[in-house]
């Protein structure tokens, strides 16, 4: 499926979709959004790119094996879950919040890091699956 239109659009859409996925990730917690859906959107961005330009091109854009994102994301999530035990002595997964508002991001807490972990794991899993399937076809 080598179409010029798709190719042109996908190069523009890739950064846009990733930006949108980060927006959805940050919007989570109180509003609809969060790590899972954000991760899916980011994965779609790369999959669209792969459809238009071929797998080798997308691998170049990614620079690393997508499977590697899974343990990284899991580590971030585990650390954010363990943070209350280490920092304040509260039970696992207790929400820790930084008091002051930060520009653009809003309030930052351990939940955001957990969601970021989920975001990376979802991208990793989706891309690993899709890449493996399209390689073997």
């Amino acid at each position, binding site marked *: 499926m080598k179409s010029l239109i798709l190719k042109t659009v996908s190069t523009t859409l890739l950064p846009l979709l990733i930006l949108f996925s980060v927006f959805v990730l940050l919007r989570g917690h109180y509003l609809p959004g969060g790590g899972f859906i954000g991760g899916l959107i980011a994965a779609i961005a790369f999959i669209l790119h792969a459809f238009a330009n071929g797998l080798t091109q997308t691998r170049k854009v990614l620079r690393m094996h997508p*499977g590697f994102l899974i343990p990284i994301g899991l580590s971030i999530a*585990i650390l954010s879950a363990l943070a209350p035990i280490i920092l304040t002595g509260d039970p696992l997964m207790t929400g820790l919040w930084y008091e002051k508002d930060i520009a653009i991001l809003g309030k930052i807490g351990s939940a955001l890091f957990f969601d970021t972990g989920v975001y990376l794991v979802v991208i990793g899993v989706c891309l690993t699956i899709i890449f493996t399937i399209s390689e073997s076809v």
Partner: protein
Amino acid sequence: MSEHLIIYPIIVHLITAVLLLFFWMKPKIQRYISILGGGVGIVIAALLFQRVWSSGIQSIQLGNWEAPFGISMVADTLAVSLILLTNIVAFALAIYSTENMVSSRVKFGYYAIFHFLIMGLSGAFLTGDLFNLYVWFEVIIISSFVLLTIGGRKIQIEGAVKYFTLNMISSIIFLTGIAMVYGATGSLNMAELSRIIPEIENQGLIQTISLVFFIGFGVKSGVFPLYFWLPASYHTPPAAVSALFAGLLTKVGIYAMLRVFTLIFPLGEVNQIILMVIAGLTMFFGGIGALVQKDILRVFSYLIICHIGFMVGGLSLFTEVAIVGAVMYMFHDIIVKATLYMMGGVMFRIFGSTKLRNMGGLMDNYPRLSLLFAIPLFALVGIPPLSGFWPKVSLFSASYTAGEIAMLVMFIFASLITLVIIAKVWNKSFSKDAPKLERKSSFKYFEDFSFSEKAAYVVPIIILVGVTLYYSFFAEHFQLVAARIGEELMNTEHYYNAVFGIK
């Protein structure tokens, strides 16, 4: 930090699994990390056991949300003893896997999934929330499905399809039961349910709902008539995986039954009879099934089913002595069944087959190994003073004092039929002359192994046999632990007070 000790058995295996994911393509390093993780797991489980033993049931509220709104993690004596046994078996299997698992399987993430499975088991034992229990069951099922299919041989896929279908159905039934409980009571916290359920007027409805749970857990533990998936799938994966499944997976179902039927829905009279009948039939059909099998691993699978009957039977009598017997039997069964499958793996390497007719002469050719294998086999039968004998004493006397002579007869029948089966296995593989078979050219036999490869197969078996011997000669220690578990299970206020922090 030490006040959060309850959660560490889960965290240790989670961290180990994630570390293993970082070393995805390096099988050698993965082996060491896995053994290390198993060792740390044992230490933490022992610490937790010591804590619970000296200062009573511990609880923690995840995310600091107060019970009954958040998820409680509760460590009572039953949970921590099972976690300790799980970690011992996991450690032994981590060593066993170093040679039993070929690198190509390790590269598909065997070790990581192995530790995710142990994490799921620890979580299932610790959780104090019904829905959370379901989530841990899902973690266990997904991990076990991957372990079952890794390698992708045709026979494995065939076994896995049966396994997965029935376990999925059981999960759905379990989930339906949870929905019914939530509809009837408005809570899923086990401690709170133990107070709400007795106050509900329509106890008939409650007992019916509890049977939905029984079906759900029954599929997982392999009771009659829901056991067909078990012998169809347990002999297909490599021995290390089968040993893990045989030792621990069916016991999770029994654990859930023990927890649910003592804490949440104390057994009513009708349910007691239903459980008794099913326990009896499980022992009967498991025993008869094992009698006619010609493959040693399939014999062991049917024996698992047969012996599940002892534990369900103990629960169905619903007296403290019977529950003590069931719990003691579970401790013995976890260790011995895992050992049996590990033995099966060694015998496969010795004879190049798991068919009984291709075996023989083990006693002449490997006298020391035969002595080692004799211990779990005889312990399974329950020859005194080996470990199988002690729980049977409790179970027999409990069924006699309860006046359930039919149950007693079934217990004795199952013990006898186990004796017959083990005698047959002994006869065919240990004492009869070795059959003249052509050696397979592309197969690595046990006698060709180097010393370290042999050690990787035999050392974990020695570890588990050591635990069996400890159980046999110091049975009073296990009796003490089981007695305390029985007391805690039958008096639910300990559990309730621990969760709600009432001194």
